[in-house]
């Protein structure tokens, strides 16, 4: 059974249609790339999937729960990392983990154990008492991702997680994403870096509120006769 199931999702703001009959599904443990030009409606769709925004019509099932009626059940099973950096700058690394672990209702022992584990994976144990504001952006992004999965969600939504980050850190970031996916956590990611799209198992490309292409990167390249996803994207965007 797919972990995300979307059928004919429509979201209107007044007369403007941000999401026009989206239909797609994401399998458990998959890394799903959600691409599209600025203003194509990616963030709107993502917000609906996370329960931040209500759909106008259509069926949306997340982890087997209905987005209209079981939003509370969904919220416990998802993690979210927003486009904007979203940890508290004036709290230390440790305090941020404590706080976010706490709002997901984890016990202090669990928080402690998982924080140690996550920081160990990032190699940032020695920074745990530093204020977040004093760390470089790349580190903060990795920490924000770790915080988003501290409660072991079924799905983690990443909204442009690597914006403004250097190539090495981006590579490391994707290594962490792979590791996370291998643990069975589904990764739903939007990005503007087309090389990153190649790392996804499947990608969808949105334009004007519609999904115009959805397949594995290899199939898309074949279909559009392109050397890489960037070319695919440009061909779609120009039409």
């Amino acid at each position: 059974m797919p972990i995300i199931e979307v059928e004919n999702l429509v979201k209107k703001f007044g007369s403007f249609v941000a999401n026009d009959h989206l239909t797609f599904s994401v399998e458990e443990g998959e890394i799903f790339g959600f691409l599209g030009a600025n203003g194509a409606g990616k963030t709107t769709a993502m917000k609906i999937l996370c329960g931040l925004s209500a759909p106008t019509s259509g069926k949306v099932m997340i982890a087997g729960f209905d987005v209209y009626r079981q939003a509370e059940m969904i919220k416990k099973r998802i993690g979210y990392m927003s486009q904007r950096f979203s940890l508290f700058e004036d709290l230390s690394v440790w305090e941020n983990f404590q706080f976010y672990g706490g709002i997901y209702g984890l016990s202090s022992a669990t928080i402690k154990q998982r924080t140690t584990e996550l920081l160990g994976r990032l190699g940032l144990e020695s920074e745990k008492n530093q204020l977040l504001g004093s760390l470089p952006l790349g580190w903060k992004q990795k920490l924000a991702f770790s915080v988003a999965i501290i409660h072991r969600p079924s799905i983690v939504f990443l909204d442009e997680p690597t914006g403004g980050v250097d190539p090495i850190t981006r590579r490391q970031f994707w290594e962490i994403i792979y590791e996370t996916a291998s643990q069975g956590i589904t990764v739903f990611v939007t990005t503007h870096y087309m090389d990153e799209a190649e790392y996804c198992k499947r990608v969808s490309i949105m334009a004007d509120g519609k999904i115009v292409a959805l397949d594995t990167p290899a199939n898309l390249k074949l279909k559009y006769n392109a050397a890489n996803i960037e070319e695919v994207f440009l061909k779609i965007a120009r039409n």
Partner: protein
Amino acid sequence: MRGFIIKEFYHIFRDYRSMIVLFGMPVIQVLLFGFALSTEVKNAPIAIIDHSNDQVTREITSKILSSGFFILNDEVRGEGHIEEVFRHGKVKEVIIFESDFATRLEKDHQANIQVIADASDPNTANLLVNYTSAIISDYQREYLKEMSLPVTITTESQMMYNPDLKSVFMFVPGVITILLMLITAMMTSISIAREKEMGTMEILLVSPMRPIQIIAGKVVPYVLLAFVNALSILLLSYFVLGMPVKGSLVLMLAESLLFIVMALSLGIFISTVSKSQQMAMMLSMFALMLPTILLSGFIFPIENMPLPLQIISNIMPPRWFIIIVKSIMIKGLGFTYIWKETLIIAGMALFFIALSVKKFKVRLD
């Protein structure tokens, strides 16, 4: 929830600016209003021109000078000088006794004193003239007693609750009100707006926390801090300004708590309509501070305002709280006298809570 509150305290204590606002402001404001902005008059320079110079005028003069409100400037010798000394600001008031003052008083039972005040500062002039006439009529009463003449009607004015007309009595309730309003409403609205601006609010909304929990987590720390502030203002006004709480301290604190909750709900409401910290700040400054100071009856008496403003002042929560504070602190009245005002503030609190909960939900769509 507990983690939420701890986090909020970290935010407050690590931001030295909000610390200064939180704890410096009460002290500074109380001291400023208590001392610097005093409207009392002490040691005002006056001149006395005595054309009679008899026993009665000398007695009145010494009574006036020993009151502590005035000090004598003896440069002025005649009426011709008056304008000049006023213009140089050397004296604030001139008192002139007509000639043969004592004789006239005895024979005609009437004698005249002229009081001229420098009304370029009308408040001071008014006060000085009032003080002077009070002292003179006081003397008149003593004089009449000695003479044992037939009863003469004299008006006797008495300043109830604040016989010395201490301005501290007027300012402390106002300062408490303003500070509680400012700290609670402004600080909460800014701190919620900050979460929005930083993007952390989104993360909180995605989490299983309910909006009401999020708001409560943000608000509880400020209730505590504002309460500490209310206490510290009361302590300051008692020990530094010598203003006691005449009524029940428990009632006073309970009313403060109610007002704090009202201001908080107003702050939450402001934050739901503002997108950034700056906007929240501006809104609380202009929408709260100025009307609080100008329309609440804190500085300008409401009775003297034009009717439209009087009507507007009814919807100013501080107006009612100031009445409550004055009733408890100065008049020492109990709850039966202020239940109406209490009810109004409670109603306002409910109104703003309902409004912001509604707003908060709408924002999620």
